[in-house]
């Protein structure tokens, strides 16, 4: 495997690297510490099996109910890019209605190909679990569209298609795909980096090691941040944890994953000299031009290296930026040299504002057509940083002809039906600017969900034995529909941690696309790793690269928004005070807020969290990672902090994960290790701190209405006493 006799230096490096690379990149669980193991991964020919429930694919455990004569549901089955499916079958737990006759069938289509049919009447008689073998040719790597189509009848003739007895229910927890796969290691080119950084895997978080010559070098921080964006954006929505390591570090053996050896990728950044061992065999004639390379690492099959090689830090930075611009396609080669590398500019300028509003596309909503009898809803969420704001939604939509006059597009605000837009013209129609006012009564501080729910009803001919056409039921909502805030407060987007998870909707307001500083308290591998992880997540959330970026340890010399990544000890007293982490204040904040939120989480009375709070472990600063917003607008405005760099790195890795990132709201969030909840102190939880006296009192009274009444009573009594006293004095003076 290694010829270490003649190439000693590089031999050790390659050995270390290969050993290190053998650890699984795509972990099944959360971030795992690198541990010792004593065997390389088994041969690639090993087949691994996997069971994926429909509940997992759909993201919830709600059964699927197929109702009506012609019903369907569609979902996606992701299959990792670098695997080969050996066999697949689908097991479905069905409960067909007793009213279905033998003409009722359930058809399974994958990627448009019918792979099986189940007679629903027979299924009811024979039991509830059915298994279908899926031909592997129907499956592809990446995202597979799975359609379940039900043709259901209760009568031979003239069955009304929307009769209630026409249904089949699918238990999503007990319905699953069984996939047997084997990893493959194709010789990927730069054009196939998307297969390497594959979001369609089943992992919760990707782990990407990054190797540089000196992982404690601050000078390369911005380069690393760009590179992290390049990888994270290719992973799309899958959270990525980066760990920075030295090139010459003696690594650890790979984690044994005997049943499932998976492809891995690592990122190397350096000069031609530093990376020479990893460039061997590529026959590069030019060792001056910056180059982007992808190669299979023969020393460890299915291991890949992505290499950014340039001889200067500035060139490395430009190269990394080019790597981050995933919009620019890469050629189908292993290597790309970039002679002219100046990349500048910003994403397309934001669309013009109208009346303190923005278009749906700013919220990440694209023009969408919702079709069918059970058309899905269009959901979006909007951040309300103001107190008692109201807003207006101005919809641009169009609908098809032939729908019943009862058709409508319902507007729901935070689960409350607020309005209904009629889609009742038989010839179809369009609303260019349909205004729906969202009153302050329905909008809450923080995230607000707006749902546009289509209710599309076909025109019936009335009664049985009168066929009608249930098709052509469509309504399109266009992304130039507007959302307009009316009143104050929208400028306060940046004053809340929710900007991290809602960045897609706030990016035009935050100013981060005009420039962002990430300031580190120290040039430390863990802190640099944390910065990479954070930057990668930000670019994923924005769906845009953060081009104007400055990452380093020095105080920024510009006025861009600044995120500080620091240990607690490295924070000066002023910043501790600004972020509410001063020694005298932080414990009271934790103690005031944690029990309340724990009690909300623990509605079922699970004791372990209560014990955790009561044991004071919840307030152990050594275990906590903090995210906070400064009280003022001076730099830095945002902070991630923990007691040690390692804790911080782990903490940020957890923060960018599924379900955690969106919990970062309010002025401070803190979380310990895995298994314990993330506590966010919402802006309204500390109303006086965040909103000033009057608005703070308003919020406090909203939370404590009876105390508010008491205050009004007491104030009234005092005022009455004062007035009475004044009248008495006047009467005595002027009327004896």
């Amino acid at each position, binding site marked *: 495997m290694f010829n270490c006799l003649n190439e000693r230096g590089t031999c050790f490096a390659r050995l270390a690297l290969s050993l290190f690379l053998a650890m699984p990149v795509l972990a099944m669980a959360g971030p795992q510490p690198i541990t010792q193991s004593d065997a390389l991964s088994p041969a690639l020919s090993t087949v691994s099996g996997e069971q994926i429930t429909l509940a997992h694919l759909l993201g919830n455990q709600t059964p699927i109910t197929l109702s009506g004569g012609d019903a369907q549901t569609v979902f996606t089955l992701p299959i990792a890019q670098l695997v080969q499916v050996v066999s697949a079958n689908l097991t479905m737990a069905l409960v067909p209605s007793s009213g279905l006759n033998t003409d009722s069938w359930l058809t399974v289509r994958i990627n448009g190909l019918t792979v099986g049919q189940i007679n629903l009447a027979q299924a009811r008689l024979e039991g509830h679990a059915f298994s279908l073998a899926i031909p592997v040719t129907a499956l592809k790597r990446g995202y597979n569209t799975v359609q379940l189509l039900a043709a259901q009848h209760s009568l031979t003739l003239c069955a009304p298609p929307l009769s209630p007895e026409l249904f089949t229910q699918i238990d999503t927890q007990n319905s699953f795909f069984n996939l047997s796969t084997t990893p493959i290691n194709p010789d990927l080119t730069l054009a196939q980096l998307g297969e390497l950084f594959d979001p369609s895997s089943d992992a919760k978080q990707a782990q990407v090691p990054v190797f540089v010559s000196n992982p404690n070098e601050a000078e390369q921080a911005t380069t690393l941040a760009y590179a992290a964006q390049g990888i994270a954006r290719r992973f799309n929505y899958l959270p990525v944890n980066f760990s920075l390591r030295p090139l010459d570090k003696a690594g650890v053996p790979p984690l044994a994953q005997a049943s499932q050896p998976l492809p891995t990728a690592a990122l190397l950044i350096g000069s031609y000299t530093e990376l020479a061992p990893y460039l061997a065999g590529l026959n590069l004639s030019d060792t001056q031009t910056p180059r982007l390379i992808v190669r299979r690492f023969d020393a460890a099959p299915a291991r890949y290296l992505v290499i950014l090689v340039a001889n200067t830090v500035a060139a490395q930075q430009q190269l990394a930026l080019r790597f981050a611009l995933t919009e620019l396609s890469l050629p189908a080669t292993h290597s790309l040299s970039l002679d002219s590398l100046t990349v500048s500019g910003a994403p397309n300028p934001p669309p013009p504002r109208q009346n303190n509003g923005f278009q749906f596309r700013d919220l990440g909503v694209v023009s969408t057509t919702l079709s069918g009898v059970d058309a899905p809803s269009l959901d979006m969420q909007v951040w309300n940083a103001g107190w008692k704001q109201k807003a207006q939604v101005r919809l641009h939509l169009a609908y098809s002809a032939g729908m019943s006059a009862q058709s409508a597009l319902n507007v729901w605000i935070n689960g409350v039906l607020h309005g209904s837009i009629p889609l009742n013209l038989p010839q179809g129609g369009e609303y260019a600017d349909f205004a729906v006012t969202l009153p*302050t009564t329905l909008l809450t501080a923080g995230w607000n969900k707006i749902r546009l729910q289509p209710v599309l009803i076909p025109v019936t001919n009335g009664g049985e034995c009168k066929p009608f056409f249930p098709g052509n039921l469509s309504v399109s909502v266009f992304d130039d529909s507007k959302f307009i805030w009316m009143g104050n407060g929208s400028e306060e987007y940046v004053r809340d941690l929710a900007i991290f998870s809602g960045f897609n909707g706030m990016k035009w307001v935050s100013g981060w696309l005009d420039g962002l500083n990430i300031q580190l308290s120290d040039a430390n591998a863990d802190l640099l790793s944390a910065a990479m992880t954070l930057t990668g997540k930000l670019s994923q959330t924005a769906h845009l690269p953060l081009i104007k970026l400055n990452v380093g340890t020095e105080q920024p010399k510009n006025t861009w928004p600044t995120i500080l990544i620091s240990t607690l000890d490295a924070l000066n007293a002023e910043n501790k005070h600004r972020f509410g982490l001063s020694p005298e204040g932080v414990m009271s904040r934790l103690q005031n807020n944690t029990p309340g939120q724990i009690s909300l989480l623990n509605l079922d009375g699970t004791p372990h969290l209560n014990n955790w709070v009561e044991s004071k472990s919840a307030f152990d600063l050594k275990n906590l990672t903090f995210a906070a917003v400064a009280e003022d607008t001076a730099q830095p405005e945002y902070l991630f902090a923990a007691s040690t760099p390692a804790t911080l790195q782990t903490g940020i890795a957890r923060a960018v994960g599924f379900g955690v990132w969106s919990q970062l709201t309010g002025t401070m969030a803190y979380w310990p290790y895995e298994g314990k909840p993330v506590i966010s102190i919402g802006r309204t939880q500390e109303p006086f701190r965040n909103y000033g006296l009057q608005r703070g009192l308003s919020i406090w*009274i909203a939370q404590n209405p009876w105390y508010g009444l008491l205050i009004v009573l007491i104030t009234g009594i*005092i005022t009455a006493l004062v*007035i009475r006293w*004044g009248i008495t004095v006047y009467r005595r003076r002027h009327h004896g």
Partner: protein
Amino acid sequence: MALFPMRSLIIFLMSITGFFWLASVPTTLMVQAVLALFLIGLMLAAYLGSRRLPKNHPIEPWLKLTVMLTSVFLGWHYLYWRATETLPIGFGLVSMLAGLLLFLVEVYGFITLMYGHFINISPLERRPVPLPVDTSLWPTVDIFIPTYNEDILVIRPTVIAATQMRYAPGKFKVWILDDGGTVQKCTDPNPEKAAAAQARQAELKALAAAFGAGYLTREKNLHAKAGNLNSALSYTHADLVAILDCDHIPTDDFLLNTTGAFLAEAKLFLLQTPHNFISADPVEKNLNIYGKIPSENELFYRVMQPGLDFWHTSFFCGSAAVLRRSVLNELGGIAGQTITEDAETTLDALSLGYTTAYLNIPMVSGLQPETYSGLVIQRVRWGQGMLQIFILKNPWAQPHLAFVQRLLYTNFTIYWGFALARLALMLAPPAYLIFGLDLADTDGQQLLAYSIPYLIASLIVTQYYYRDVRWPFISQIYETIQSFYVTQGIYKVLRKPRSPSFQVTPKGEQLNSEFVSSLSWPFYLLLGLNVLSLGFVAYRLTDPQWQVGAIAFVGTWAVLDLFFLLAALGIMLERPQRRTEPRVPVREPVVISLNGAELNGVAVDASRAGLGIMISLANGQIAAKLGDELTLLWPRQGIEIQAVVRTLRPRDKTHSYLGVEYRLASSDDERFSVAFAFGNSSQLEANNRARYGGRSIISGLFFLMKLALRYGIAHLISLLKQQTGRFYRWFIYSF
């Protein structure tokens, strides 16, 4: 005049500021609902509690403060919400302007609420100051009765009653100030007018001579009533001047009750007493509610003037008042820059450091304007005059006035903004429903949570202060009928502050038949708009773009306006008025000698010219017919007067009503008839109190609806007949 030490003032201001600041704290809808429910409940408890407590109970001031502070809290909170969350900025220029105007109207309403609280916070109930036993120390009094063109029969009882007031003989003199018989009038180039003036002059001279009054006139009719009074001042010399409008018949204790205060307080310039009316105003007459509801003036004279008196800001109302001559001399006479010379004179006197007082005992019996046009003339004059005072004699620039006095004189002007406010409120529903203007950026839920509590609070406040003297929604009827013309009058003053001229309020007009007032036309337009907007309610409710809650709210508002407008039109259908000598309720046993029979009866109403008697006999048992002569005997007074039967009708199965016209044989008879009908202030007080008594808001609303539907529709029917008749005549004559 410093009211409080500085430290106390600071504490006071801080407390008030804190209260208003707290009322400005925004709330969620849920909190607003809870707060409103609680405060309304507290208000209601205080209101109901105060009604059950005896007068002057020690806890009463605290209940008043509860009502006051809760209404102010709700009102301020409402206005703050309106100002910060509902102004229709961004809905187009027209909507924005209309919405801002509506908001200003609401601000105006809150200001008047605050003024109402301020005025009524501690009313002063004075008692008459007794005169010394030694009558030589009593002040001399000239009693001026200015007249211009009123019927002699209107003036006659006033002169008679004035000359027989109980006072030290020789210490008072009654003067008829005849502006209808001036030299200028008597030598009018028009011989008919000159002859009429001369005849009038002769009549009034004879009247004066017959009852021992003096007669004064002057060369020219300059400066109207003020000029007339000032001319008289130059011919008279008494210490005090009592001014009585020619229809204000004084009681016999008028001077006894009023002059003592001038001996007790050297700086007193004016003692005003209530204007008490014994005839129906056009609202009462045309809606047929005279005697059934309290008189309109009671609110001002019975409730508000005592409140103003507490703040030393009672003002001269032109009649039923006594003034100190020395101050008048110092002022150069009655003021004449504005057409409300009375209030203007008071301001001038206050600016010299003098004081005023108010004695809340009705001691005159006067006549109301009888037609809608007469009422409009009167009210427009008052409104214009008050605005003139503010523009020409800015109370904030006058010396020696206390801050409170300046504030309240500002209120006297601001009050007249009600006309514009009422017009704006009537135009708001059509603006929204017909023209689709967004007057407020809100929805039905919020309107319910914010505006309804404030509305209820305002109604409770009105009931609390004025329940006994003003039924619910009656004020709005009065405002509606004045709205257009007072607005017009105010506009004229704003354009040319010195231009309005004094117009005498017509009294004693005869109305022989029913007719539609020619001043009704603006209200047809308003009614038309209102009805159209109600039609649009139905149309709008079918349009999904519109908010049902807001439509329902504005629609209800429009329905209420409809009732106000119909009631207003009912008032503008003038009913016949056949009696010019008003009657007042009395209660006195009389004996009737009629056709040889002696009947015992009780006099139930009386005028200068006649008597109404209740006899405990069925109608058929009384041997009398119309035109029979009879003798009336007042056993208590020992007076006999001849009379003739004019009315005889059954009252019920056992009582009959006999109406007689006096045959006054002598001036003594006439003196007695006047004294009997109008001379007793206790009787006047009792008559007024008999009309007190409130109604609940719901009951008041039903009363309004009944009046509106009955008399408003009658107006429209009459109008239709009139127009149909005109068209028919035009058609006949044309073809």
